[in-house]
């Protein structure tokens, strides 16, 4: 008999968090450790009295940082909740007020007092100048903040929120808190930065000046030879790429699902390419083909007897590179769409005497329309957010994502301009994201009932088949050539100028010296960034997967108020271009209360929130395959929601977990747009290193390094396929009995 023991004794979770709170206040250093989060020299370096390493309580004892003292109140108050019954109204009241007060005070003091004392003029006017200052928060503040957060969640759970389920309430609050801190807070900082003048004052007019700049919105190019605004450039490119990738994606989807083409399974391998290819690698390959000394350019120049030109840099090159890079994404989306059109509808149309072509035109295509729009919007967002290709191939064709970068790192160093550009970019991508979710959200005609449809898809009508085959064949061979170029380029001295075969680039990057003593020395220039990348990606991957799966669990299995807003918030970071994340992180986390720039942690965090939507999607997709009655059975058998999550859902999701792990690992290795703002001398990432090589015109090394990355990631994906293939559980049983 499950006697309800939690009625009278205090739940161990609460005791745990109260202890964490006290440890945070009494024992561990309050402020961030300058040498890094995971260094522990401070233990032997003046702790606990040295004010750099002192815990909050010691600081107050020394008469410093007195504004931390009020934090003792909620900590002490929380002790009064111990020993009280959960149903006692005072239990909830104590925990809620302690949690809210503690958390808010922690935030307020953090934002009010910074490196130069008071952060806001009115505070100084009110309390007089402050002769003290504080740095970024460290272990102590982090522990205490978590303790207050979970005290609060236990309080509202005791009041009956979500059936009093502590695990669910805590999980929701945790996700909301960290998404707020690491997505919404930086974006807010970015928006504010657009209104700040050079003197640090707020001003609307400075924003208006920067926003209505001709460099952003100018349309002179229509009438004269002057360049158009970057916003128009980006928009035009994104629209083109969206349309072209959708058409090509549909072409491939038709070949794979509706033709007798023998090797269509191999075509699916195309979908892996964008996952394992760093975004700018396509650009590099195109330079080898179409650049000034590129093979194709030189060939035609000699043929026609003209001077080779830089024709490809700018719109043509960007268009080719982005189409190559993002067509597989549209392909992936559209396979599902084309397969999802119920064959019985098409068969019905056929029995009603429509010819194959008419069936396609009047039934199949209209049913695919929402899917096509979806693919277009994805291509649009990807093109807008792309940073690597414009950096390598952009030439004089400026786009938003690279302009943001040059506004920050270039000679101009104009935070305001970067912020304004980021706002414009964000508006475009969020607009597309919004359209995708709310306008298309309810318009899917594809069947997802899971019930077997006995029909088969008709083959493509002949009128459609020939052009489709032709386009697909050309595109596939082009893709193959591009990837071969990457491989070939890595083995050539200097492409187009000195075509000697060599492995010197690999040696420069990855040489290892064995000394006589047997010590290995990683002498290659790329090893440092390579190991950093592996380390950061390996740390970020499990965190991303965990956060994604917990969020997916909350979205598919729990009902709570504000669930739609919660879903929108967690998926939002998908639509925020990496460059915007990068700029906003620099603005938000360079100063207290959260100081992270220059650390490895900020890279890990940026990966977690950039890739979280991927984990969420993987989780949602596989969780909605699990019948809800499995959870309910577990609950009625006396397991609580945490035990259910751990013992029933997680084991059944093993393939999804693996996929999320590998995918976030690989994405962390290929990312460039946010990373390039956040890398430091100590924590340099592979992609940033490669871009650096490209800027020095050291293409050979860049391409050799890229090839290595592709091989590493290909093996990661291969390993995944191998592992997932082995962990399959009997399908039939996971869907419940099918006999009727």
């Amino acid at each position, binding site marked *: 008999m*499950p006697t309800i023991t939690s009625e009278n004794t205090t739940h161990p979770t609460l005791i745990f968090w109260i202890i964490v709170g006290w440890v945070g206040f009494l024992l561990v250093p309050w402020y961030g450790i300058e040498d890094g989060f995971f260094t522990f020299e401070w233990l032997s370096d003046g702790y606990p009295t040295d004010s750099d390493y002192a815990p909050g309580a010691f600081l107050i004892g020394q008469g410093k940082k007195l504004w931390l003292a009020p934090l003792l109140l909620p900590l002490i108050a929380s002790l009064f909740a111990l020993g009280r019954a959960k149903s006692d109204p005072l239990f909830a009241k104590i925990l809620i007020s302690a949690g809210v007060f503690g958390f808010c005070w922690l935030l307020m003091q953090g934002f009010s007092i910074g490196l130069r004392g008071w952060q806001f003029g009115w505070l100084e006017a009110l309390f007089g100048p402050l002769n003290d200052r504080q740095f970024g928060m460290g272990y102590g503040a982090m522990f205490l903040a978590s303790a207050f957060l979970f005290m609060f969640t236990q309080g509202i759970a005791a009041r009956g929120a979500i059936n009093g389920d502590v695990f669910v309430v805590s999980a929701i609050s945790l996700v909301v808190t960290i998404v707020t801190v690491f997505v919404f807070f930086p974006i807010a900082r970015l928006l504010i930065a657009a209104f700040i003048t050079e003197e640090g004052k707020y001003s609307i007019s400075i924003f208006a000046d920067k926003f209505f700049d001709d460099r952003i919105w100018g349309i002179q190019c229509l009438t004269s030879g002057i360049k158009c605004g970057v916003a128009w450039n980006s928009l035009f490119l994104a629209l083109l790429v969206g349309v072209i990738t959708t058409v090509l994606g549909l072409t491939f989807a038709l070949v794979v699902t509706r033709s007798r083409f023998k090797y269509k399974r191999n075509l699916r391998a195309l979908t892996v390419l964008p996952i394992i290819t760093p975004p700018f690698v396509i650009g590099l390959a195109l330079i080898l083909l179409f650049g000034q000394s590129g093979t194709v350019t030189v060939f035609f120049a000699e043929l026609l007897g003209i001077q080779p030109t830089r024709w490809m840099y700018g719109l043509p090159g960007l268009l080719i590179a982005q189409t190559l890079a993002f067509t597989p994404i549209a392909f992936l989306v559209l396979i599902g769409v084309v397969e999802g059109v119920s064959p019985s509808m098409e068969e019905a149309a056929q029995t009603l005497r429509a010819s194959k072509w008419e069936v396609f035109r009047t039934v199949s295509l209209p049913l695919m329309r929402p899917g096509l729009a979806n693919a277009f919007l994805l291509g649009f967002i990807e093109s807008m957010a792309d940073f690597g290709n414009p950096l390598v191939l952009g030439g004089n064709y400026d786009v938003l994502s690279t302009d943001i970068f040059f506004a920050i790192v270039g000679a101009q160093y104009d935070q305001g301009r970067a912020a304004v550009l980021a706002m414009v970019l964000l508006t475009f991508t969020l607009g597309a994201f919004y359209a995708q979710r709310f306008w298309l959200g309810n318009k899917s005609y594809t069947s997802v009932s899971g019930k077997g449809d006995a029909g088969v898809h008709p083959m493509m009508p002949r009128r459609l088949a020939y052009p489709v085959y032709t386009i697909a064949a050309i595109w596939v061979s082009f893709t193959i050539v591009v990837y071969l170029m990457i491989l070939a380029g890595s083995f050539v001295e200097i492409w187009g100028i000195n075509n000697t075969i060599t492995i010197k680039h690999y040696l420069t990057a990855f040489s290892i010296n064995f000394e006589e003593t047997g010590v290995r020395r990683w002498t290659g220039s790329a090893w440092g960034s390579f190991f950093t990348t592996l380390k950061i990606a390996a740390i970020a991957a499990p965190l991303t997967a965990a956060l994604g799966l917990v969020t997916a669990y909350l979205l598919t299995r729990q009902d709570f108020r504000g669930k739609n807003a919660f879903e929108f918030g967690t998926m939002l970071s998908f639509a925020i271009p990496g460059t915007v994340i990068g700029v906003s992180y620099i603005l938000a986390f360079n100063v207290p209360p959260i100081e992270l720039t220059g650390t490895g942690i900020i890279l890990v965090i940026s990966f977690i929130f950039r890739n979280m939507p991927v984990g969420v999607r993987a989780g949602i997709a596989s969780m909605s395959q699990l019948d809800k009655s499995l959870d309910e059975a577990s609950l009625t058998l006396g397991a609580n929601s945490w035990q259910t999550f751990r013992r029933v859902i997680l084991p059944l999701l093993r393939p999804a977990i693996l996929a999320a792990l590998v995918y976030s690992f690989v994405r962390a290795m290929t990312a460039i747009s946010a990373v390039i703002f956040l890398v430091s001398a100590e924590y340099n990432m592979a992609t940033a290193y490669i871009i650096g090589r490209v800027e020095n015109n050291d293409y050979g090394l860049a391409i050799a390094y890229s090839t290595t990355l592709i091989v590493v990631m290909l093996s990661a994906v291969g390993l995944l396929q191998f592992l997932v293939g082995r962990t399959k559980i009997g399908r039939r049983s996971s869907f419940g009995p099918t006999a009727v």
Partner: protein
Amino acid sequence: MAELTKNKKAASVTFENVTKIYGGDVRAVDNISLSIEPGKLVTLLGPSGCGKTTTLRMIAGLEMATEGKILIGDQDVSMLPATDRDVSMVFQSYALFPHMTVLENVSYGLKYSGFDKDETRSRALAGLDLVGLNGFDGRLPSELSGGQQQRVAVARALVLEPQVLLFDEPLSNLDAKLRRQVRQDIRDIQQNLGLTVVYVTHDQEEALAVSDRIIVMRNAAIAQEGTPRELYEAPVDRFVADFIGEANLIHCQIDSVSGETAEISIGKMKHTLRSRGMQPGPATVAVRPGRVALSSPATSNSVPAKILKSTFVGNHMEYVVDTGFGVIFAMSEAVETPFDTGQDVGLSFAKSGPVLLLAE
């Protein structure tokens, strides 16, 4: 090995004015009060969407009542989540955990009820023994037939010896022959162990066969409650009459009422039956097809009728008959001497055949 003995914890279930509202305005259950005695098997019967499954899930704690009070035994459980209620449930899809063996499935709940390892194992094995699955403990659910999976689900719920055991359409995934067998097994176990069982189904035959009492639901409310016999023989209204077994609904005239009995006329036919508190005037009677008697024309107290359609369905005959007061559906066991389509016959009702329906 532990024996599953008579359940001493079997408890009553009481609903006091319970309402469940989804999404602000959809009333899935509207102000229901009911009480289920301990040790009885009570069926919630009704068409899909009538609120029976929601009612069941509120007993389980998988849904919380929007208003009203739910008691199990004497304890108010209205705010208690499923985990903390001493109730277990057999799901329509069985919901066996596909990654656990049969034994692990059956032990799952025991583990969270604080039994030690040996006790858990012996209780789980006893449960499997009870449902006749000795020796299947090492298999995965996917290696069992539908009927076996169903029995594992029952064992998993049984071994917790819950205060109340819930069944959500447990037979709907089994084929017709197996259904009869399994429902008898469930009934036997329930009676032997003295369990309180709440059983949801939309199959009236199943409900009649297994229940001590039946609660017929319609549009989120209770239409009628009673023993199977009461419901069959004295339905309160058209809905219940038609839902429990088939019924001919015929307009009639109540000529006179004296105490408990009433005289009615259907066309030229006279009949005496229970008045059920009705007053003279127009009314409706329900007549089961099996209680319509067909004979040669001009038999006494019969009305002339004509066979419109005659169907042989194996163990009985089905007739569609045209009478002066409408078209009647009749069944007859006289397979040897059938009437033919177009034949003239005399039609009468068995003595206890027609039942007055209460005014709606």
